[in-house]
């Protein structure tokens, strides 16, 4: 294999997989947090990001009756919307089901997902549009390998957020409280931590992470159709979380990048004529193997 | 000839030796007691015998056949009827349905003809209902026929559970604390019932029991477990006066015994989850 072919077929997908995987990692981080605090899977996680992306684009373009706002403000509003939706989900759907079987709560989050897609559809009108990249231009462009500024921004945001998350969970009282609740809810209640408030806070953080991820990913894929974020990123985000054992925060980030690269390489190396949707198949196989062989995940310790 | 023979049974949970070279024998038509302080490993022994746990060492023989690694549902079909310490029934279903569920292996029709709903199925269903009602009558529970099991009192549940074990058409009955949740009078009555069941159905029984008067009255032979080891055996009277047994019961709530009990219970919960 010549160097150029190698660069084109192997390195280029690895680079784009790394970038895409960073977004999966951000979403996976939120999934892990919610699993730690509520012991559930949130099927609406990727669509929280979808809501952020749609709100951002509506304000950015001044759609309908909305004012046309500067991009940074619109982005901020988008992330706020994601946080708000996450908080509402916690308050109206998850909290009333605190003592319900976990499966019931999971189906309910799937309902929230459908609701969000429907709301996006109402607002957008059903025809597909497009999301602009927030950061235009290329950082690297050597023919075979191209890295956009948006891609660089994604990786930088992931790095910054993961450092912040690490600090938050090791230093801040709220962060340690979240971890305490996730380990032993009853004991945490006994020492005066409000499990309800911690739950709300966790959902807020998960919404924020999803909002950031959603806006960044939307700018990368361009296509704006209701539910497209879920279609693109939900399964990889879950796979990322499971890779790390659903309870490990760094595991989710690393898992996200690994998953991103696996998906991207499979898509690039296996011709569509032989196996359509090779990326998805690779994800399915990876998830199945992890669950069958090492249910605690590759980096997971606690269960 | 012995119906059930257990040789040198050993099992560990993590670092805890739950059973250490436990041996016992149950002969035809005998009622054998298995007693011991909490956490002694009685239920663990039951779970090894009925196939829910696979022992690390030792053998379980049923009528001359090695059944150490036989799956629980296969053992149930061979004639092992059992009850559980914390009541094993389908709580959402009625007493009648539970008794019919317990007759699964004896339904007289297979799954496919069951789905087609042919005459054989109807006959089988009718026979199962008749048998279930006969068992309810036998235990004096006829009025509970269509009551949901979940709402019944604990003592009634234990009795009904015994009925379910009977409905599996067992050869040997393994009863885990059949009198828990019953008052002294009810316990006495249960003792009579066990004797009647042995006579009427030719049953052999292994019984875990705390209620000493019952053990004295119905058991032909008694084994005493302590800390996973067989401490003593003999007739009820011999065992009752055995110095080791008295010592074990007086010190029965020693810290080690409690630790063993909680480890066993945790393991139970994990497996039933």
């Amino acid at each position, binding site marked *: 294999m010549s160097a150029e072919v190698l660069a084109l077929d192997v390195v280029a997908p690895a680079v784009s997989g790394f970038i895409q995987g960073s977004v999966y990692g951000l979403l996976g981080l939120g999934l892990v947090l919610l699993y730690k605090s509520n012991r559930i899977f949130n099927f609406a996680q990727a669509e929280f990001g979808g809501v952020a992306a749609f709100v951002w684009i509506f304000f950015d373009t001044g759609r309908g009756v909305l004012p046309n706002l500067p991009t940074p403000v619109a982005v901020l509003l988008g992330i706020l919307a994601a946080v708000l939706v996450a908080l509402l989900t916690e308050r109206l759907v998850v909290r009333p089901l605190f003592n319900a*079987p976990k499966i019931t709560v999971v189906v*309910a989050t799937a309902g929230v997902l459908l*609701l969000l897609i429907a709301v996006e559809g109402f607002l957008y009108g059903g025809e597909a549009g497009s999301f602009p990249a927030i950061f235009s231009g290329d950082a690297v462009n050597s023919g075979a390998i191209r890295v956009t500024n948006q891609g660089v921004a994604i990786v930088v945001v992931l790095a910054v957020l993961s450092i912040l998350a690490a600090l938050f969970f090791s230093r801040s009282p709220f962060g340690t409280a979240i971890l305490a609740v996730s380990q032993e809810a009853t004991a945490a209640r006994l020492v005066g931590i409000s499990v309800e408030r911690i739950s709300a806070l966790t959902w807020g953080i998960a919404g924020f992470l999803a909002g950031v991820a959603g806006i960044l990913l939307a700018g990368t894929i361009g296509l704006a159709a209701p539910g497209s974020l879920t279609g693109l990123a939900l399964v990889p985000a879950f796979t990322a979380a499971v890779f790390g054992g659903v309870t490990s925060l760094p595991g989710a980030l690393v898992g996200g990048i690994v998953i991103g690269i696996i998906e991207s390489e499979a898509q690039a190396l296996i011709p569509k004529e032989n196996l359509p949707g090779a990326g998805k198949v690779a994800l399915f196989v990876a998830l199945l193997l992890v669950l069958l062989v090492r249910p605690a995940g590759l980096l997971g310790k606690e269960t | 000839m012995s119906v059930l023979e257990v040789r040198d049974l050993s099992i560990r949970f993590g670092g805890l030796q739950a059973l250490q070279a436990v041996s016992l024998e149950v002969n035809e038509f005998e009622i054998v007691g298995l007693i011991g302080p909490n956490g002694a490993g009685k239920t663990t022994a039951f779970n090894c015998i009925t196939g829910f746990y696979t022992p690390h060492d030792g053998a379980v023989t049923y009528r001359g056949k090695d059944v150490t690694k036989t799956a629980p549902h296969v053992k149930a079909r061979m004639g092992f009827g059992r009850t559980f310490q914390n009541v094993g029934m389908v709580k959402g279903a009625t007493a009648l349905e539970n008794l019919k*569920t317990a007759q699964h292996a004896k339904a007289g029709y297979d799954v496919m003809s069951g789905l087609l709903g042919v005459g054989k199925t109807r006959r089988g269903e009718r026979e199962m209902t008749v048998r279930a009602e006969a068992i309810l009558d036998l235990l004096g529970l006829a009025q509970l026929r269509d009551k949901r099991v979940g*709402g019944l009192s604990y003592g009634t549940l234990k009795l009904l559970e015994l009925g*379910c074990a009977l409905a599996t058409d067992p050869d040997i009955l393994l009863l885990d604390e059949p009198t828990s949740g019953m008052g002294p009078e009810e316990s006495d009555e249960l003792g009579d019932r066990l004797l009647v069941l042995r006579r009427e159905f030719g049953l052999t029984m292994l019984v875990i029991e705390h209620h000493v008067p019952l053990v004295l009255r119905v058991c032909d032979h008694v084994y005493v477990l302590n800390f996973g080891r067989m401490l003593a055996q003999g007739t009820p009277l011999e065992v009752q006066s055995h110095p080791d047994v008295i010592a074990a019961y007086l010190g029965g709530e020693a810290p080690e015994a409690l630790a063993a009990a909680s480890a066993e219970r945790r393991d139970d919960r994990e497996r039933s989850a």
Partner: protein
Amino acid sequence: MVAVDTAATPVARPHAVDLALRWVPRLAVLGLLGYLLLVRMPADEKYAPIYADAAIYAIVGLSLNIVTGYTGQLSLGHNGFFGIGAFAAAYSLTVQHVPFAVTFVLAGLSGAVFALVMGMVALRITGLYLALITLVFGLTLEDSLFEVSWLTNAGAGQPANRPEWLFSETRFFYFCLAFLVVAVYLDFVLLRTKTGRALLALKENERVAEAFGINVTAFKLFAFVLSGTLAGVAGALYAYRIGIVTASGLGFNLALTFVLLTVVGGLGSRLGVVLGGLLFASLDFVLHDTWVHNVNDFVFAFQNAPQFAVGFIGALGLILTIVRYPGGIGQQIRPLTRLLVGGQRSLHADDGGPAAVEGSNVRA
């Protein structure tokens, strides 16, 4: 014989009023059903496709109910079994020229085979992880197998043309209805025989089931296979209903719609699930014709999007059902069904109902 019966069960002869109370509502419902099926629907060539959809959805709902309602395993991948059935029927008919009737057998078989594989996975992976892996299974099929060139007629979609005698939409509806009747009957017999009892027992406590001599592994697989067969056959009906099978429409939304109609219908409730199918099949149409045109224009100046209205109402219904009425439609209509069927003994005890079935026993 009669004398013995009365002696054994000394029950007072039912009063004429009781008889009337019992039979008047039954006859009324039967009459209404008869009117709908025999008078109203034959005249409804325009609405017949919706009725057909309802029947197809109801079959899938029953199928999902077996795995999720009876054995307590949440499957989010039934769009996979459904899609496989649809493609199997279309491909065998159009490419392999297999007789029409045989295509249904092949569709059911293909659904069963894939369900068997998922059932084996479900032996190792349970609870939330099973929900996740089944979801990914369905989505993966949508993007891979359902895009394979030879199966999909090079991506253009595999045609599935009905035989001439089924051209009439009304007649096709009755055709689907016949399948639904068979499915309902199967479900009915299932619950009333040892198989259904085995499934409910293993759902509640696997160890107790084993102590009763029930082969838990075999019955878990059986539930998946039966469910997959039903879903596959429903997929075949769907193929003939729309005439051409493509991957679009067999994806995520369908997977969630199936779960939705089963949960909103009421897990464990046969009639509830059937009504759930009817609800979701007609929602699109009803909303399109009435609500959307009038309300949506008014709320926002954006374009109409009726398909999202369906999702919106459906999702709201699901969330409300789960949070407020966990027993679904099945639980809500319980007084009515009890009145119609009478004080008949059911496998589910009366006070628990579908809520109890859906409730604490689902393994998480």
